[in-house]
């Protein structure tokens, strides 16, 4: 549903004439006149008001009973009183009622000092209580999950947390049990409340009933400062407020941004901050001496890196991922292109796009925004699962379906978290997205010649594709296609552009494409020119260079000699681990910028520059819908072992500039801001942005009306080759990357329990044929390479496919490089004894 138009009304609060948008609730409307009405249960982000706490009762002329301001929309000419005796009596009554069983443990309560109940009690309460009965006492705190502690004594039953679980994240795990005064918040049969967004309930709780186990008793509100920045944990770049005490990040809170995260955070962003302050953190340069990485001075490390790069010259390459900012990407590509004459710069694990396709896909006219997901007529989710790749998008899509009746279609190989909400679901063969896009193009153009073959390549059939094409055509004007990076392989990008042209998505507000890249700042790096096929701002280059796989092949074959890994861990996260192992093993020098001592760094790096963690960084990031946002340093960079100034972590723009200088290239980056302004000048469509303009909320550059020349003609497509079909004893291999497969999760004590373990997801039919039961240890193998995992039976997995997890450190899925694998149960005697 398109966004409704806004209309303003005038009403009176406490004798003050106030104008507010029509339809807002009185609580919000009164704020336009600076009148505060106290609330506990009201939180408009959680959906319809419930009117449960009764704190917001006000008097409205013409209505005999007091009304809840949280559920009464403002109307023209309404006369409201919030300061009459009746209202005071009611408010005091509610506070008195709420406090009768609420313990007076504010001095030892984590919420004390930032507690709405405390504030409202002071502001609106009766001051004393007449309740002399014994208060109820219960054991406290109790574990609700490894992340959250629950204190049921303090709970005032405002329903916020259960509404979040039930109506917002829709995981429906957190419930109210029993009835009346016996009601309490809990879960089914003592199961923990573990869900990707569970941490949000801590922030929603208006009392100290739900607290973060990682933050409990670490600081009081008067000890801390808040620092706003954005989190580069995934490509949405959630806005966060870091709670800082003594140069340490103690907590991460959401900094509500309607255009980005809508005020929610996933648990990885919320609890991953612990990785900033762990022992595994690299705080000074390391240089390999013999087989050991030894701490080294900056001079030595810079010297080693410079020498290696100078020697390699055009035979050097760079790979970026993780926390890489736009500025770093820009400076790095200058360093490599101008200083070394190498254009081998890659960030995408699944391959880069040809320049024309990259440019066409970035066309501002084709861009959908994150809020469009909420107001579109229809959304197609193509080969991606937001819950793992860009979690808050999952919440946005759900919100759209719930509030604005958005129609959702899902087409993916692996079942997604949104399947249950979708109007139609199409299961593809692993890697079949290209086939589907070509088939959809054929169906929309009426080209029956390609349709059959392409549908088969997709792992579907012509009729299903025709139905989906018809659905897309008839879904309504505002159609948003959310696609994963894997869908762009081969002719995928061209086909997607054809689709957009045929569905006339270009230039339409509220419609368009939205990429969910697998690298957090993928969009920004591409736009800053960190790509093999184009320079900053998609500038044309004389010659294209190698993509990620090409770099690996070049290193393995000796055609390339030195590689710069900028927060990148290709061995873990890129396909074809054997190739990368051989590449990094063969490479003469591996220069790594990394925050943590990961396996790849430990094993392969020769020179290691300590990387800044995001709370220490400055610079800009561009999120998946083109919003350029600022990273602002919240804490100082860690010092080195000597404690001397400059011995520890240095800003990365400075490191790059220093290397460049030693190579005889002056990057003219003396400050972070200088790097930013260079970037803004170099990328034409960033339109001369300034850091000030970007401010705390960011700017979507597609809204800056940049000139864009993109090809409009539709391309002629070929039927892609179908992957091999499953056969007796061999299943098609699909992979997925869990939200929790990340270096932060590995080292954060709070998140440690979520570290993914290897699984093999099978449908029950295949499992039965293979004699595999739920929970069995199974071996997935091809060509003699094998990984082990736990069998997980899922009815929604398509027969003939098996899915294993990427980025799992102990049983890495990317060692399997064949499309077909054998799956068998590991017999008990084969299992190694548990130590």
């Amino acid at each position, binding site marked *: 549903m398109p966004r409704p138009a806004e209309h303003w009304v005038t009403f009176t609060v406490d004798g003050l004439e106030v104008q507010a948008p029509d339809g807002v609730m009185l609580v919000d409307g009164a704020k336009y006149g600076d009148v505060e009405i106290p609330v506990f249960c009201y939180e408009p982000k959680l959906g319809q008001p419930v009117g449960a706490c009764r704190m917001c009762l006000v008097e409205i002329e013409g209505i005999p009973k007091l009304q809840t301001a949280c*559920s009464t929309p403002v109307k023209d000419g309404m006369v409201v009183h919030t300061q009459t005796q009746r209202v005071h*009596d009611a408010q005091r009554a509610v506070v008195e009622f709420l406090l009768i*069983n609420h313990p007076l443990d504010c001095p030892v309560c984590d919420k004390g000092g930032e507690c709405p109940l405390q*504030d409202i009690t002071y502001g609106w309460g*009766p001051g004393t209580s007449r309740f002399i*009965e014994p208060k109820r006492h219960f054991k406290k705190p109790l574990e609700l999950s490894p992340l959250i502690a629950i204190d049921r004594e303090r709970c005032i039953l405002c329903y916020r947390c259960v509404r979040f679980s039930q109506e917002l994240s829709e995981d429906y795990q957190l419930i109210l049990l029993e009835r009346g005064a016996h009601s309490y918040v809990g879960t089914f049969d003592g199961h923990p409340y573990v869900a990707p967004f569970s941490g949000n309930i801590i922030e929603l709780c208006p009392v100290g009933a739900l607290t973060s186990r990682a933050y409990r008793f670490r600081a009081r509100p008067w000890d801390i400062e808040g620092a706003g920045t954005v989190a580069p944990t995934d490509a949405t770049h959630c806005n966060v407020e870091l709670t800082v005490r003594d140069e340490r990040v103690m907590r991460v809170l959401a900094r509500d941004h309607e255009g980005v995260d809508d005020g929610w955070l996933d648990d990885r962003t919320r609890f991953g901050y612990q990785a900033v302050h762990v022992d595994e953190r690299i705080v000074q340069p390391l240089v390999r001496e013999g087989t050991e990485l030894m701490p080294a001075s900056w001079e030595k490390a810079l010297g080693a890196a410079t020498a290696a790069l100078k020697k390699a010259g055009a035979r050097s390459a760079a790979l970026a991922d993780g926390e890489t900012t736009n500025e770093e990407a820009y400076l790095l590509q200058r360093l490599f292109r101008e200083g070394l004459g190498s254009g081998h710069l890659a960030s995408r694990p699944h391959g880069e796009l040809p320049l024309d396709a990259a440019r066409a896909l970035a066309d501002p006219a084709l861009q959908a925004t994150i809020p469009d997901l909420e107001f579109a007529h229809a959304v197609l989710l193509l080969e991606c699962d937001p819950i793992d790749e860009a979690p808050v998008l999952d919440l946005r899509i759900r919100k759209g379906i719930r509030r604005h009746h958005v129609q959702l279609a899902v087409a993916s190989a692996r079942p997604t978290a949104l399947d249950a909400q979708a109007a139609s679901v199409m299961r593809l063969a692993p890697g079949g997205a290209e086939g589907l896009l070509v088939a959809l193009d054929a169906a929309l153009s009426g080209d029956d010649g390609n349709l059959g073959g392409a549908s088969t390549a997709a792992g579907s059939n012509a009729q299903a594709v025709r139905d989906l094409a018809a659905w897309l055509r008839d879904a309504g004007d505002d159609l948003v296609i959310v696609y994963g990076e894997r869908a762009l392989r081969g002719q995928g990008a061209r086909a997607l552009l054809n689709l957009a042209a045929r569905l006339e998505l270009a230039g339409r507000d509220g419609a368009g494409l939205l990429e969910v890249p697998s690298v957090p700042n993928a969009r920004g790096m591409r736009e800053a020119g960190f790509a093999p096929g184009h320079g900053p701002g998609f500038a044309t280059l004389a010659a294209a260079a190698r993509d990620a796989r090409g770099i690996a092949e070049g290193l393995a074959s000796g055609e390339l000699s030195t590689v710069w890994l900028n927060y990148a861990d290709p061995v873990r996260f890129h396909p074809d681990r054997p190739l990368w192992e051989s590449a990094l093993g063969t490479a003469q020098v591996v220069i790594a910028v990394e925050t943590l001592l990961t396996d790849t760094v430990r094993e392969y790096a020769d020179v290691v520059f300590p990387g800044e963690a995001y709370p220490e960084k400055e610079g800009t990031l561009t999120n998946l819908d083109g919003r350029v946002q600022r990273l602002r340093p919240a804490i100082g960079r860690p010092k080195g072992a000597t404690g001397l100034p400059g011995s520890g972590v240095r800003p990365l723009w400075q490191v790059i500039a220093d290397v460049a200088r030693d190579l005889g290239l002056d990057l003219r980056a003396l400050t972070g801001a200088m790097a930013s302004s260079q970037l803004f000048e170099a990328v034409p469509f960033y339109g001369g942005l300034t850091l000030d303009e970007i401010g705390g909320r960011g700017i979507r550059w597609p809204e800056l009306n940049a000139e864009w020349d993109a090809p409009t003609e539709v391309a002629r497509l070929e039927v892609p080759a179908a992957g091999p079909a499953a056969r007796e004893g061999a299943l098609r291999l699909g992979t997925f990357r869990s939200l929790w497969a990340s270096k932060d999760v590995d080292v954060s004590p709070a998140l440690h329990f979520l570290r993914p373990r290897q699984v093999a997801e099978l449908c029950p039919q295949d499992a039965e044929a293979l004699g595999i039961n739920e929970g069995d240890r199974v071996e997935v193998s091809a060509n003699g390479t094998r990984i082990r995992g736990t069998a997980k039976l899922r009815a929604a997995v398509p027969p003939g496919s098996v899915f294993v997890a990427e980025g799992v450190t102990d049983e890495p899925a990317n060692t399997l490089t064949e499309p077909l694998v054998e799956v068998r149960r590991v017999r008990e005697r084969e299992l190694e004894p548990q130590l």
Partner: protein
Amino acid sequence: MGVQLFYDGIDDPELRTLDGYAKRGGYEMLRKALEMEPGAVLQEMLDSEVRGRGGAGFAMGKKMSFIPGGTMDKYLVCNADESEPGTFKDRELMQKNPHLLIEGMLIAGYAIGANKSFIFIRGEYDHQADVLDAAVAEARAAGYIGDRILGFAHTQDLVVHRGAGAYICGEETALLDALEGKRGNPRLKPPFPAVQGLYRGPTLINNVETLMNAPHIMRMGGKEFARLGTANSTGTKVVSISGCVQRPGNYEVELGVPTRELVYGLAGGPPEGRSIKAWFPGGSSAPVLPGTDEYMDLPYDFDSIAKAGSMLGSGAIIVIDDSISIVDVAVKTAKFYRHESCGKCTPCREGTNWTVKMLERVQSGEATPMDLDIMASVQEQIIGNCLCVLGDAMAMPIGSMIAHFREEFEAHIDAARERNGLGAAIPQVNRGRQGGAYPMREPAGIEPTPAVV
């Protein structure tokens, strides 16, 4: 005895079957209604001025007229979650004459254009639900329920939905939540069910007895029906009389009969040698009235009982005789509402809990007369501040008991303190009966505290 619309021949076991019901003119009024325009049927209901029998006493025709026109899915729900203490009329009516309810629902459904209808019957009424299931199956087989009823354009389905034991589901919006498969929590109003009810569609919710009036209204004509009873309380009423009476049971009377005739005449009055101390005029949610002549002479109709400070409610009289301690009744009543409070809104959840705790202290003798003041004030804090009327339903009778029987409460406290060896209660400073709810700080004209941001 007067007119017996419902109870005339109701004990005929054949009446439960379609044949037996048809023999007595069953489903003829449905045919008559279907031959009329829906608006004309609605007009008859309006003319009858019959008021809801479930507790709130809202005019049935008016409620029906709130259902918007149009072709959206509309719903009719029969509230058969009869759980008000002292009320048991719907149970007997459904069990003995199920087809009358079905016919009434079909007529009402036709008048408002509802194609889906539900009977939400409380789970404890197992037998009655079985009877209804059988009757619905029979009626469906005979073409009274389903597509194109009797060949007319009207289509209406009927599902008997069994609850699972929660008084609050008698509240109409809580009933809707329960019917939607959720916890039976009341919803905020507005939106009212007539606009956005079951599955977000316009919904008419009526009590069993109310809907059973529809065939009678069709037969008599609305205007004629309105002659029964009094001007503002038309029709007959099945009154449930229970408690300390000699002949408890359901009695059908025209509204407006003197209460005395109900309690003494029909129900036989209190047991020999006892007198009536107090009575609930309309279920346990109604404020109690003393058993004095002044109140016994009240005509039993909506307006007179309301004027006396109570309400007709579901039409259930519970008689309390002089052998019963009012404190015990208060504790029972308060405990019931604490048990049945859904817990959604603060004043009801905490207020009922607090009241029970105070009353238990009164009962055990740990209280002082000051507690009565606090208790009365707590009741005032509940009334009008809750999401639904359940909180009020406890606060009103408890408040009325303290108001009418304060001396007995105080005597009980004194005696119990004496028994416990606690000595006499010290008179309270600063907390007289008129001391008000908040003796601690002057409430008016407070500045918002700067601490609150």
